[in-house]
């Protein structure tokens, strides 16, 4: 961890804080436009293209319009909490960025001051992010409760249950990263990925994290808290104007936060991607910011891609998936990593041997999964003659069901019985 943290002059800190804020707000505006354009492309539409070049100013216009709308507080709402909720949701979203490293140490232009491109670093940086985002959940839950509306309440409940459940799986994936990096500080984790980005040795953790981060941000296909078909808009059903805009902002900032965290933990943070990394200057100066934002944008694209292609899950399926698959898988992976680390340090295995072993195991697993399963007994359907009137009322046969030979008799009896009924 850089020695500069904690000793920098106050104006550097303020400049960095303001810059982070500005970057996040602009990034959000960009992301909204980006999402609309990409989804439009996927649906063979054009998307916003009128205001500004490529329609880039559309989200700015929308934002201004949203802020100028009438602010409604429902009669049944708990006023204080109702007003506080969007603020509680938004502030932690920004606070998490205090420990995200954008780049290495750089010299501030026009001065001699050298500073790391990171507001500050904590020895517990990553779990600080986890802690702060868990406060953000309060905003959503309280919004749901204070609105005094059933839809909002249900949405709030769903989101809190969802975020807590997926936070567990998410936190467990961090453990393997900590074990490899030997630190919980974000800067140290990026430093530790100099040789190899962690998503290669820790691929299962990476996959689990990516799934959990979608659940954590309430995005499709896990956007149950605001499932329009069931809950109108979920926790923010009753919100309008600037308060709604704050929720919107918080959601998008959270999306960027988890993407940035994924970049930091698994994709080498601000380090240049492979072909560019051969250029010596790639990891110096302000270039890393570009790589960092680019990697983050790739995750944002993934979010949008998921939204464009996958239907929403049912709530019970979603919970079952989280608790019965994701968390056990994350636990098993954590235990495996611990064993491997122990073996590595005791038997002094090198990385190559491990990778070969891992590859062998993966190949074996793949081959095993290719072995066709033995035919189960459930194909032996009870071949009872189909009787449309078994229940005392005409029922059409199941799709694909051929009532071959006695088909004519069947129709005849059907016809007769129908007529007999009509009489």
């Amino acid at each position, binding site marked *: 961890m850089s020695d500069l943290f904690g000793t920098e002059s106050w104006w550097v800190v303020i400049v960095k804080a303001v810059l982070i804020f500005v970057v996040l707000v602009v990034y959000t505006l960009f992301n909204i436009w980006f999402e609309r354009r990409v989804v439009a492309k996927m649906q063979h539409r054009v998307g916003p293209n009128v205001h500004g070049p490529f329609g880039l100013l559309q989200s700015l216009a929308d934002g201004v319009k949203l802020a100028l709308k009438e602010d409604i507080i429902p009669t049944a709402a*708990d006023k204080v*909490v109702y007003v506080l909720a969007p603020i509680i949701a938004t502030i932690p979203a920004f606070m998490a960025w205090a420990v995200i490293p954008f780049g290495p140490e750089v010299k501030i232009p026009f001065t001699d001051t050298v500073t790391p491109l990171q507001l500050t670093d*904590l*020895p*517990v940086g990553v*779990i*600080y992010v*986890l*802690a*702060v985002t*868990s*406060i953000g*959940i*309060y905003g959503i*839950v*309280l919004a*749901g*409760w204070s609105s005094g509306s*059933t839809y909002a*309440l249900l949405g*709030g*409940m769903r989101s*809190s*249950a969802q975020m*807590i459940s997926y*936070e567990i799986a998410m*936190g467990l994936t961090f453990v393997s990263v900590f074990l490899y990096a030997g630190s*919980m500080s974000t800067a140290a984790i990026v430093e530790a990925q100099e040789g190899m980005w962690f998503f290669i040795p820790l691929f299962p953790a990476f996959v689990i994290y990516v799934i959990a981060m979608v659940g954590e941000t309430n995005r499709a296909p896990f956007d149950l808290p605001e499932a329009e078909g069931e809950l109108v808009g979920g926790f923010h059903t009753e919100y309008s104007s600037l308060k709604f805009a704050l929720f919107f902002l918080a959601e998008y900032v959270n999306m960027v936060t988890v993407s940035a965290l994924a970049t930091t933990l698994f994709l080498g943070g601000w380090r240049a991607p492979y072909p560019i990394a051969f250029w010596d200057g790639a990891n110096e100066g302000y270039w890393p910011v570009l790589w960092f934002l680019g990697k983050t944008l790739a995750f944002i694209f993934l979010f949008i891609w998921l939204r464009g292609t996958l239907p929403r899950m049912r709530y019970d399926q979603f919970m079952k998936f989280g608790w019965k698959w994701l968390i056990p898988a994350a636990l098993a992976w954590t235990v495996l990593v611990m064993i491997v680390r122990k073996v590595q340090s005791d038997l002094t295995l090198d990385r190559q041997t491990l990778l070969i072993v891992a590859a062998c195991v993966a190949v074996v697993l793949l081959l095993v999964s290719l072995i066709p399963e033995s035919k189960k007994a459930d194909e032996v359907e009870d071949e009872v003659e189909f009787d449309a009137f*078994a*229940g*005392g*009322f005409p*029922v059409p046969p199941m799709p694909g069901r051929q009532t071959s030979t006695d088909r004519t008799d069947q129709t005849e009896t059907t016809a007769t019985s129908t007529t007999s009924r009509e009489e």
Partner: protein
Amino acid sequence: MVTFWTLAPIMVLAALGVVLARKAVHSALLLAVVMISLAITYASQGAPFLFAVQIIVYTGAIMMLFLFVLMLVGVDASDSLVETIKGQRMMALVVGLTFGVLVVLVVGQGVVGVSVGLGEANANGNVYGLAALMFTKYVLAIEFTAALLITAAVGAMVLAHRERLVPRRSQREESARRLQEYAETGRHPGPLPTPGVYARHNAVDTPALLPDGSPSELSVSRVLRARGSVREGFEGDVGQTLRQLDPDDPTSTIGGSTPRRGGSGRTEES
């Protein structure tokens, strides 16, 4: 010191609020304020790990579950204030205050000198220091905490998990049962009718109208009906307006006074 004197009043006020707030959710929120302030105090005293854990575990998980329960159960009404044992509250107040004063006096007098050893404990960083203790001196205590956690999990399952003793009916069996029921009792096998839609109301609490103009009772949730928060559709606002416009118009009392069962109504049409 600055952190302490900023946070201490907030914490004390919030703690008082926990006790005095009318709504349970407000109490829970204020408790969260106390917890977060505590976490910041930990951070300011050089315990960043405790800071993060305090927020994740207490604020993020435990308080959230509290809120969850409070919201689900809906403990909004104030509690019953009847004393089952006469004078109990007074006695509790006196004893509690006495105890509080005693503890404050004793501990207050007992605190002497300055605290030492923080630098030593944090010499290699707070996380390292904690790890060194947890994995050596107190490793057994930490391991036996596992017994506690497993007990808690098993206990939660024992007390709350209801095992399915009869196999769940498949969708197919369910539909067969519905049709059977329809054949026998005439109950509509399809979904219940959706509520009516009026611009003035939230639709869920407004009954739909049947073709003859009477409201369908089945279209509103049973819960809302039990709570008595169902709008009467035409009977209410529209009918009133119509009566005001033309007291003699027979359509203004459309549908009669008792709403009919909407579901069975449809089958009688033929």
